[in-house]
């Protein structure tokens, strides 16, 4: 086996140094009743070439761009990724290193993550950002727990227009804790209804997503004021980080914590993971943040360098009193995001975000002209909800055969929205793609 370098002569000489007769005898401390006496029932090994064929066959049994035109976002977005980003991300000095516990040998990772923290903070308009979390959903759950630590209160309010699967994760994390999660309803125009907050006492946090799950842009300023009136933290959640290339960022509208999904920043969709949990906050909450942080410092010669810092918040020092149990995070995804943001640049990201917005507006307009109802009249970014005629399900299935995925059906998540679909358009969808979608759904 090419991954195992030992020759039989080497094995023999090493066994002699250890003082045992054979490889099995190395396991003398494993009691007999603990041993597995049989062979593992696993497939026989494949050669590299047979593996290629086997994996390619499975990969072919998938529906992906460019063969399929997928008009679905909902937390996982198809964006173009420059070849330079994929190439740089594959450099094995980044890929095959561990968490940078030994900073002198890990300055590449450390500077890159420090730069990621900085670019992320700038994108979100916040002062500081962590080195990464698993995904947008776990970043939200950890942010809510952080708000509970900061305020010492035990109730959080969460908009029902936060991604339904993010809310599921929040409920999973909260179930054994005894803390209360209150969900806020939504208004006819597709934004969060904040009126229930008026009678709510002892609130640790108010979390709202923008653009929300229906694609609508929320009034973060007003949400923040509502939260701060109650001395609660305002948590701004998001699934499409690219939107802040164009829209006002969370920090400029009073967010205390901004958290969400960074997959749009150069990370392959890969069936939903690995993704990138972005989490940023105001500096005054620095010592309550969950997860790793990289800080700038100097070496013995006064030269600039970077280290993991504020470790006293973390599990390996603080044990059960840590701000989180996270250890391995999604560092390489953070690196991809930094490379992507550096490649697209400040000027480019605004143009790209505008293009996403304008394309979605084009599709919206064309669907309207074709007689379909756009459910919510609130402004949107690159996603919006459309109502198809009753019985559209059959047409949807037919379109799948034509390799066209006409949005995400909303009824499984919002039963009151039968026949409503969430459509997404990014820069990867051409005018022709959109025109053919309109032709198909209108026919």
């Amino acid at each position, binding site marked *: 086996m090419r*991954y*195992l370098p030992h020759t039989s002569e080497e094995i023999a000489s090493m066994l002699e140094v250890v003082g045992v007769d054979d490889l099995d005898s*190395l*396991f003398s401390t494993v009691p007999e009743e*603990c041993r597995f006496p049989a062979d593992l029932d*696993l497939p026989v*090994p494949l050669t590299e070439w047979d593996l290629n064929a086997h994996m390619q066959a*499975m*990969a*072919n*049994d998938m*529906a992906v761009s460019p063969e399929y035109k997928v008009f679905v976002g*909902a*937390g996982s977005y198809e964006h173009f990724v420059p070849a*330079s980003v994929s190439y740089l991300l594959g450099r094995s*000095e980044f*890929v*095959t*290193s561990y968490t940078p516990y*030994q*900073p*002198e040998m*890990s300055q590449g990772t450390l*500077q890159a993550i420090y*730069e990621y*923290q*900085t670019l992320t903070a*700038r994108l979100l308009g916040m002062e*500081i*950002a962590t080195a990464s979390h698993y*995904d947008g959903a*776990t970043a939200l759950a950890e942010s809510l727990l952080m708000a509970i630590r900061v305020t010492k209160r035990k109730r959080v309010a969460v908009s029902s227009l936060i991604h339904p699967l*993010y809310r*599921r994760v929040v409920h*999973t994390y909260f179930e054994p*804790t005894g803390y209360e999660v209150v969900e806020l309803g939504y208004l006819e125009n597709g934004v969060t209804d904040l009126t229930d907050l008026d009678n709510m006492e002892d609130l640790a946090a108010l979390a709202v997503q923008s653009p929300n799950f229906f694609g609508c842009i929320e009034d973060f300023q007003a949400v923040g004021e509502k939260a701060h009136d109650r001395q609660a933290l305002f948590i701004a959640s998001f699934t499409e980080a690219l939107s*802040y290339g*164009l829209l006002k*960022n969370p920090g400029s509208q009073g967010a205390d914590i901004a958290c969400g*999904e960074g997959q749009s920043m150069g990370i392959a969709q890969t069936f939903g*993971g*690995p993704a990138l949990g972005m989490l940023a906050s105001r500096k005054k909450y620095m010592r309550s943040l969950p997860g790793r942080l990289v800080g700038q*410092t100097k*070496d013995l010669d006064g030269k600039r360098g970077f*280290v993991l810092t504020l470790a006293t918040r973390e*599990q390996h020092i603080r044990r059960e009193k*840590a701000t989180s*149990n996270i250890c*391995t*995070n*999604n*560092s390489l995804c953070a690196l991809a995001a930094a490379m992507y943001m550096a490649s*697209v*640049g*400040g000027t480019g990201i605004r143009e790209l975000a505008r*293009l996403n917005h*304008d394309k979605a507006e084009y599709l919206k307009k064309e669907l309207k002209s074709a007689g379909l109802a756009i459910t919510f009249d609130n402004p949107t970014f690159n996603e919006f909800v459309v109502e198809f005629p009753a019985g559209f399900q059959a047409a949807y299935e037919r379109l*799948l055969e034509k390799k066209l995925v006409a949005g995400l059906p909303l009824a499984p998540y919002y039963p009151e929205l039968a026949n409503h679909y969430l459509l997404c358009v990014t820069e*990867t969808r051409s*005018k022709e793609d959109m025109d053919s979608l309109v032709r198909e759904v209108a026919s």
Partner: protein
Amino acid sequence: MKESLGANGLILNEPLLWEKGKKGRSGFSLPRRDVESSPPGQGLTCEGPDLPDLSEIDVVRHYTRLSQWNFGVDTGMYPLGSCTMKYSPKTNEKQANLAGFAGAHPLLPAALSQGVLRMMFELQQYLAEITGMDAATLQPAAGAHGELTGMLLIHAFHKSRGERRSKIIVPDTAHGTNPASAALCGYSPVSVKSNNQGILSVEAIAEVMDKNTAGIMVTNPNTLGLYEENIHKIAETVHAKGGIVYCDGANMNAVMGVARMGENGVDVMHLNLHKTFSTPHGGGGPGSGPVCVKKELEPFLPVPRVMEENGIYRLSEDFPESVGRMQAFHGNVGVMIKAYSYIRSMGPKNLKKASQLAVLNANYIKERLKGTLHLAYDRPCMHECVFSDEYQTAHKITTIDMAKRLMDYGFHPPTVYFPLVVHGSIMIEPTETESKEDIDQFIEAFKTIANEAGSNPDLLHDAPKRCKVRRLDETTAARKPCLAG
């Protein structure tokens, strides 16, 4: 001795991203605009984020230079204890990048996602077989996330029987994340000391196990690199009081095909695909921490679960007792593909051989270094061995000094100051992918350093000298944090 790996290379300086570039440059091919402009309403937009404008070659040189300041398994031996820094095969990267996988949307109908669902279903079966358990979930994103999943399963199990237990046993030889994972689930960890052999005694567990204790989190092999020989009796003791046995399987690289935790009395365990199953660590992630369970815990596994019927795969949410979701989607699928490729490339015999050679390498190092360094427990070890700086303290040399000096010889240091049960610990895990000659060179380097500790200790105090930077001021970094530029 062979020529040392340590040398000065052509390492270039490189500023921070925003110290480079010029407004108006771009490293991105902006897609064609084929629709008219329709600006959003007033008051919704901002100036755009303050990101630097760089050309493609600016970005390429930046990250190429940064990468050269880093050390990875592809650079050299990386014997971090409990981290299993084995070689990450290149073909695995290629498979994960196949367009059909990399471009897959997580919320399409199952009929459009058969390939990836099949991969996930089969991987679950392989992992259950390797651990001797009945079922598996691939959702957890990392080891600590797997631990949290395990704690939630235990919590749900007790709750289903109308119980709420408040404590959990965590030995002093468990992984560092364990207490924090338990606390997230509302459990207070009860610490238990290992005995003078470095393992748990049945008596110590029996003393603390009661009806208010949800179970035990045992790391096996433990962080001293020792097999928990009493695991069967310990499991019986915990089960007798209605508790659940959780195994932290981060050290599974020692026992694939040798011992299965399912037959050792374990009810639930996590695996680290980024350790045992060769997926790269990525400078700190992404990992993947699947959780395997016995039948009695299966109803509580996270949803959606991957199901198969007549060769057709689908995702099912139909498990009313499930703890819910651990991530928005289905876990770190890109990492799973690499682990799947690894298992298919290795097959059952080579997986067992990998564990045998990992244990051989660790015992070989233990034998050859034990006169040079103080060996904490002089017993046969599993995949790692733990030394301390006891012999060097006379020269005012500590573990960290030796670790830093190793860098000058071209090796990544071992894990230091962990496990906590050994003062000044040096925890060496070579893994099976290191050859005898590389290990010999590592041993020689350590012996030379031990000599230098006596003859010229300043060489160690001043180390490293050959890295991009010298020792860094971590105290000021924490006192006056500068976290963004």
